[in-house]
């Protein structure tokens, strides 16, 4: 099972019927608008829009919930520390440390914004085939080489992940158990070294085969559909909501 094939947006759902370019632009616009606002009202509006988008993509609730909790450990710690480091009106005291209302507000605001963007990105982009995403990036004017690199990387991630699993299995068969220590860290170093050697040789063979078939270093651009009425309608509604969100967040 590939790590790149996420369940797509339900066929026939509004998100699935949108032009891929519309989805990419909408996702990045969402992230920028969320970054612009402070306070609590704007992030709440953002999260509401993100959940609406998730609904429009008919995402499974479990998937959305998992993404909500996916904040990396160090960010979670940072947010936990924040109430105690921001000075302001004391709210409560834990083990001699005083949490301020301002600090709690700020931590809450950041957590809401981070989660809103994560869910919106999942609904708009995570439900898209990565090759489609690459083509959309090309149509949006990113350099050919960047898009080619993106598409090649998408292709190799599966190959590498599979190979990584095979090597780890081989290590396990030889009674390797990861623990904290030089031996483990070096063994993993050699594992990735071997992964690189094997994959590079393979990539050279693939490249030779592609050149033989006339590949010149860039993929032909496949022109997709132009933006339709649905895209313009969705784009206008999306932009209006984001605009309102930015206004709400103004100090």
């Amino acid at each position: 099972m590939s790590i790149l094939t996420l369940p797509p947006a339900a066929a026939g759902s509004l998100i699935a019927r949108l032009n891929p370019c519309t989805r990419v632009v909408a996702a990045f616009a969402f992230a920028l608008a969320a970054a612009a606002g402070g306070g609590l009202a704007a992030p709440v509006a953002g999260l509401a829009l993100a959940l609406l988008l998730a609904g429009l993509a008919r995402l499974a609730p479990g998937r959305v919930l998992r993404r909500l909790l996916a904040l990396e450990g160090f960010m979670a710690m940072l947010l936990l520390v924040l109430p105690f480091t921001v000075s302001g009106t004391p709210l409560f005291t834990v083990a001699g440390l005083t949490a301020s209302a301002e600090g709690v507000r700020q931590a809450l605001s950041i957590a809401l914004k981070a989660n809103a963007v994560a869910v919106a990105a999942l609904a708009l982009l995570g439900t898209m085939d990565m090759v489609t995403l690459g083509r959309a990036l090309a149509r949006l004017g990113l350099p050919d080489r960047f898009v080619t690199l993106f598409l090649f990387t998408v292709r190799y991630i599966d190959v590498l992940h599979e190979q990584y699993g095979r090597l780890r299995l081989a290590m396990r068969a030889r009674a390797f158990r990861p623990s904290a220590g030089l031996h483990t860290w070096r063994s993993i170093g050699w594992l990735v070294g071997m992964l690189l050697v094997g994959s590079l040789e393979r990539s050279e063979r693939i490249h030779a085969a592609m050149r033989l078939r006339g590949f010149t270093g860039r993929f032909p651009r496949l022109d997709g559909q132009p933006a339709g009425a649905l895209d313009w309608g969705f784009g206008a509604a999306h932009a209006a909501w984001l605009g309102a969100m930015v206004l709400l967040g103004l100090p």
Partner: protein
Amino acid sequence: MAHIPDGVLTMPVLLGGGAVSAAGTWMGLRQIGPERMPQVAVLSAVFFVASLVHLPAGLASVHLLLNGLMGVVLGMAAYPAIMVALLLQAVLFGFGGLAVLGVNAANMAVPALLAGWLFRRLRRPGDFSRRTALAAGSAGGGAVAATALLVAGSLALSGQDFLPALTVVAATAAPVMVVETVFTAAAIGLLARVRPELLDGQP
């Protein structure tokens, strides 16, 4: 410890990181001719997969960063490779974010370039001995340290309130740095013996 999510940093920091990364990616792309494309893509995929590899380190479990290795093997081309991998991580796993993509890429790719430069300074071409492994180890560990500094810097620039919390960044970076030093020394040591032309061919 290196993926800052969306919603944390302020607009000027986001725009600054975006500008640095646009320039770095553009410069890196110019180095990737059709011949090198598969190699860069493989490294980019390795960088992506590394975030899924968790290693025990003391009490905590850390995941590899690998930006030192990227810089050592790819040089300038490490920038676009890291950019692509971060975009995919953000879209597929929700690691990092979209508006912060530029900042995250800069935080990881600038140390990668420095690590590559350091490695080429410390190592003599054609050398496969312990010296290569040592140079690679310092590049790997140094890249993690530099990334931690840049992450702390991005947070500090976004608000004074983050300043006391920066010890958290340092505390999470220290174990990754130790693991990554040993890891990079082993990985590059192996590459130097098996595929030396990979390390010598770079400008």
